[in-house]
């Protein structure tokens, strides 16, 4: 036997304060009402810190600070000077990446291997990438003199706290906007550490403001009349509510919402790599990924073989302490999310799908869910239609490429899809027909700042990333 000894990443690189205020106009301030809530470590339920809860008057202060900074400093500033700040922030993120990665894993529950090797490199890459655009906006293909929009209200989810912050803040600032950002209430800490980095970078006060809180704070922010642009990543339900509240105003809106992506495996696929792609598609980040490959569509004539390989591979997944460098699957982010995953999985069993998980010991404390697959799933099952947002894969079969397309598209969502085949022509044929914003071929969950990302249908509208991502923050 070859048992890996515990290899925990040290927590000592993170200097956690007992409580955090709001970051408004370049300084940490107490909320007007003095309310706060606790941020916990989902792997242990230990309280990490007290976080200020921003009320309407705090949001007002933040939006006013952002407006002032936009009018007086950031809006008029030449692009090349804005770029200097963004480059500085990107470098500081790289310098402090270990600290940020550990804090992200503590607060979110994701494995340190992912926060260290995926989240943080992408966060820095986003700032570097958009820093490069700041003085080249007239060459971005939107006409000669594209102008910023103004003050952006940005509300982000808990699955990739710092990465979603980067997707929102980097293009907004590069284009000359100022922002008020609200992180998710279960994962505020890295956004607050990012605020410290803004101070360290001497970013002018008010350019970035961070207001922490839950749904009420978010609502106050997106409904604030002083906001010119709203960007939201999160659930389709909240996205709908935001679209309603913004309707009839001058505010521009981009939404990046849920998904129920099909990961389609043909009989000529490179099986071993396809199995890796399936695992990466649904168990990466505990399945808390809007573009997760949560529906496996496998050609019926290879289904047994693929499933056998998949189960063997799943038995190798190491579930446990997010800070252990050998952990593959960490903790579910919150009790509420765990409840949601359990409810939908129970529905899967109740509706007659066959449930399987590898033998794995889950820790006693904290929020955990074993990697799970359901076989014998049909389009009529709830687990084939609703977004579970957890480590739960629904397996369906198909017979022909046309049937694969039909099943893949038969969902209200349309964020991403994956195709596994050795045949290049089939990849192109499928990609033409799949109604999904991102189509991966022989890979899955690949991200790059140069590549636009976004959805069709109920997965939202607007694109983030790449040249296209600038459009959401420019008057064009």
């Amino acid at each position, binding site marked *: 036997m*070859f048992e890996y000894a515990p290899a925990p990443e040290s927590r000592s690189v993170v200097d956690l304060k007992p409580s955090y205020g709001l970051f408004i106009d370049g300084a940490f301030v107490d909320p007007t009402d003095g309310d706060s809530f606790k941020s916990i470590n989902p792997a242990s339920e230990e309280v990490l810190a007290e976080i200020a809860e921003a009320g309407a008057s705090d949001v007002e202060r933040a939006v006013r600070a952002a407006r002032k900074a936009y009018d007086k400093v950031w809006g008029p500033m030449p692009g090349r000077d804005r770029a200097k700040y963004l480059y500085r922030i990107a470098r500081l993120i790289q310098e402090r990446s270990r600290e940020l990665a550990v804090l992200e894993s503590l607060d979110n529950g994701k494995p340190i*291997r992912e926060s260290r090797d995926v989240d943080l490199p992408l966060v820095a890459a986003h700032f570097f990438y958009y820093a490069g655009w700041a003085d080249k906006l007239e060459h971005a293909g939107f006409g000669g003199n594209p102008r910023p929009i103004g003050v952006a209200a940005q509300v982000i989810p808990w699955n990739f706290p710092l990465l979603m912050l980067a997707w929102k803040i980097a293009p907004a600032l590069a284009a000359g906007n100022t922002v008020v950002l609200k992180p998710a209430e279960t994962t505020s800490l890295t956004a607050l550490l990012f605020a410290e980095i803004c101070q360290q970078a001497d970013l002018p006060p008010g350019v970035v403001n961070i207001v922490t809180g839950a749904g009420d704070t978010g609502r106050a922010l997106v409904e604030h009349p002083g906001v010119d642009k709203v960007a939201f990543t999160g659930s389709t339900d909240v996205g709908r509510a935001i679209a309603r509240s913004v309707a009839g105003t001058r505010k521009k809106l981009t939404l990046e919402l849920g998904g129920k992506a099909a990961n389609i495996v043909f009989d000529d696929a*490179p099986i*071993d*790599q*396809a199995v*890796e792609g399936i695992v990466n598609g649904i168990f990466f980040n505990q399945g808390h990924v809007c573009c997760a490959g949560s529906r496996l569509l496998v050609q019926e004539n290879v289904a047994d073989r693929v499933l056998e390989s998949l189960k063997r591979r799943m038995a190798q997944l190491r579930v446990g302490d997010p800070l252990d*460098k050998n952990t593959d699957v960490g903790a579910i982010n919150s009790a509420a999310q765990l409840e949601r995953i359990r409810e939908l999985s129970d529905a899967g069993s109740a509706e007659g799908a066959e449930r399987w998980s590898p033998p794995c010991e889950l820790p006693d404390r904290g929020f955990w869910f074993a990697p799970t697959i359901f076989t014998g799933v049909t389009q009529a099952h709830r687990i084939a239609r609703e977004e579970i947002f957890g480590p739960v894969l629904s397996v369906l079969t198909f017979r022909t490429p046309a049937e694969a397309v039909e099943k893949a598209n038969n969902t209200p969502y349309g964020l991403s899809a994956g195709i596994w085949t050795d045949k290049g022509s089939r990849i192109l044929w499928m990609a033409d027909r799949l109604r999904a914003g991102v189509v991966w071929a*022989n890979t899955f969950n690949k991200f790059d700042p140069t590549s636009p990302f976004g959805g069709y249908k109920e997965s939202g509208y607007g694109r983030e990333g790449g040249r296209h991502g600038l459009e959401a923050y420019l008057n064009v």
Partner: protein
Amino acid sequence: MTATTTSARSELSELGRSETALRTFLHGLPGVDQVGAEQRAAQLGTRSIKTTAKAQAIDLAIRMVDLTTLEGADTPGKVRALAAKALRPDPADPSCPHVGAVCVYPAMVPYVAEVLRGSGVHLASVATAFPSGQAPLEIKLADTRAAVAAGADEIDMVINRGAFLAGRYKEVYDEIVATKEASGDAHLKVILETGELATYDNVRRASWLAMLAGGDFIKTSTGKVPITATLPVTLVMLEAVRDFREATGRQVGVKPAGGIKTTKDAIKYLVLVNETVGTDWLDPDWFRFGASSLLNDLLMQRTKLTTGTYSGPDYFTLD
């Protein structure tokens, strides 16, 4: 073995009778996606193996070393010294295990055999006109028989890459079958020379070809071409032995060779074995490292773990 694997095994053993059947089978194996295979190997390379796990891995790796010298300048004195080292890699520490085997040219086998006799350390000899394999078949077989007669209990043969790349699979197959026969009771390791096969699809096909023809081990490289063992190539070969055992019930060993110089490298390979084929292969009977300088680095790290300090290179024997 189940009835299905028995019948699958006899079906597979028929393949070698016809060029067409072999080609159809080998070309019908699932492809390997290069990016995906390399990504998986790299990901496993980030595993953090510390403390007790590291100590365990180092001792296992020492037991898996095929301590190798394959030089024109090899002499009886040189190979005797190497064999002595194989028996007692760390003279200062009797708890240090001996290596898996010593690997030399056929002409050097008698000198090594004298030293190793009765020790449990295997004696491997390269054969079949190593490293190019570019000699008539009779000469390759005579080479093999001579090595076995001189005392080798493991034969490291090279496949005919020229025939493989030209698509003459049956010729490659027949040569392996003939070499296996010439090897008698000696274990046959089949060197694919993956650096010359170039693609992972070819590596998978050559792995199957070698196993179908009766090879006991598949080995990556001779160490004599610029590209030697890599993690992704070894991953593809491990997948092949895993699938082959599933189909036939017969287990085949894997030996990456060349370029593995540090303990860190060796541990990455052990992680790859552990998470691809599991503990059945974590044994010197089923996994070997073809290496020379690796052993001293393993010994240095082993001493570091037991004493807490690094010793200088002069504390480890040079051969």
